[in-house]
């Protein structure tokens, strides 16, 4: 039975192209409670939540969203299989390469001296954009 979403204080996650919370509920989600080191990878049909870092050389591929509760330094692919509404959330967003659906991006060459704050990457108007993450009304 589906949980009652109208009551209670559900956090409104942006992402999924701004879908309602229930859209987040119907997919599989896996919780990974460790750091992904170089050479380690996760492939999952659904959402992936990592409580730890993704180090350079590590790889996360998910057909849904990817949440990294730590430093994202490796390769991440959200929406693998073509879901353009998937998003990547990271407390520290510094991926080697970031892919969403069929879009592939990487950080610009040179020193990165942008702010180190929680960020979200998703597709807007056909391009991947990275914005500061704030829960609630933003989107």
């Amino acid at each position, binding site marked *: 039975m589906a949980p009652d979403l109208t009551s209670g204080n559900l956090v409104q996650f942006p992402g999924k192209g701004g879908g309602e919370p229930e859209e987040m509920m119907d997919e599989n989600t896996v919780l990974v409670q460790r*750091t992904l*080191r*170089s*050479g*380690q990878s996760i492939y999952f049909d659904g959402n992936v939540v990592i409580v730890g*870092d993704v*180090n*350079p*050389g590590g790889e996360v591929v998910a057909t849904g969203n990817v949440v990294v509760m730590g430093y994202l*330094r490796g390769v991440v692919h959200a929406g693998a299989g073509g879901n353009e509404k998937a998003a990547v959330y990271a407390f520290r967003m510094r991926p080697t390469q970031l892919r969403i659906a069929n879009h592939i991006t990487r950080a610009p060459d040179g020193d990165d001296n942008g702010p180190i704050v929680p960020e979200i990457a998703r597709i807007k108007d056909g391009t991947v954009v990275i914005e500061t993450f704030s829960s609630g009304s933003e989107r």
Partner: protein
Amino acid sequence: MGEVIVITSGKGGVGKTTTSANLGAGLASLGDKVCLIDADIGLRNLDVVMGLENRIVYDLVDVTSGNCSFRKAMIKDKRFENLFLMPAAQTKDKTAVSPEQMRALTEEIKSEFDYVIIDCPAGIEQGFRNAISGANQAIVVTTPEVSAVRDADRIIGLLEKEDLREPKLVINRMRYQMVKHGDMMSIDDIIDILAVDLLGVVPDDEQVVISTNRGEMVVMNDSSRSGQAYRNIVRRIKGEDIPMMNLEEEGGFFRKLRQIIGLK
């Protein structure tokens, strides 16, 4: 029952063999009975670094294949009564030994020693799997270079898979001047990525090269900074709480260093 410690790194040339020889000699100098095993079959170096090459009669492969007992293959060090070396075979390759044989061998050896230190070959193939199979502790050696740190990260992941959790880190060939000028990764940068306990930092030192070429261990050189660093590491292995060396005159860096240690 002794501790079996594997010294590994993934990348070659970061100082596994030097670290093995110095930690072995350091522990032996404090009175422990130590056995060093060279697991780098086909590319043996540990005997050369220790200046014992000309004493080898039997080797590791002779022991695992049942040609002789491990006591027969073991070479007593010329400086320390209680330091022994099990040399690798030079004419064979890594496939001459299996992880099961290594496990059985270390199981047999550790009952007679306080510490068994295994010098692991570079790479992540069979040589690596052989070397770690009998160990119950791991020391990962890295240098302040992105490639070495990347490989160390991979190795830590593989060690965790083999149930060698919480490996300790030795950062070798640190050049403090370069760190100060922002030209080299700092200890903080490395710990930030690898997230493991720091066992010690060995400064870049010409003395290491000089003593290695002579078949001596720098840990016995009282005046060298790297020797002091290795002596500190040895005492930390034995469970003493030794503060990190002050290798920089200025306080700023050392304070930072202390913060790292304080985090543990």
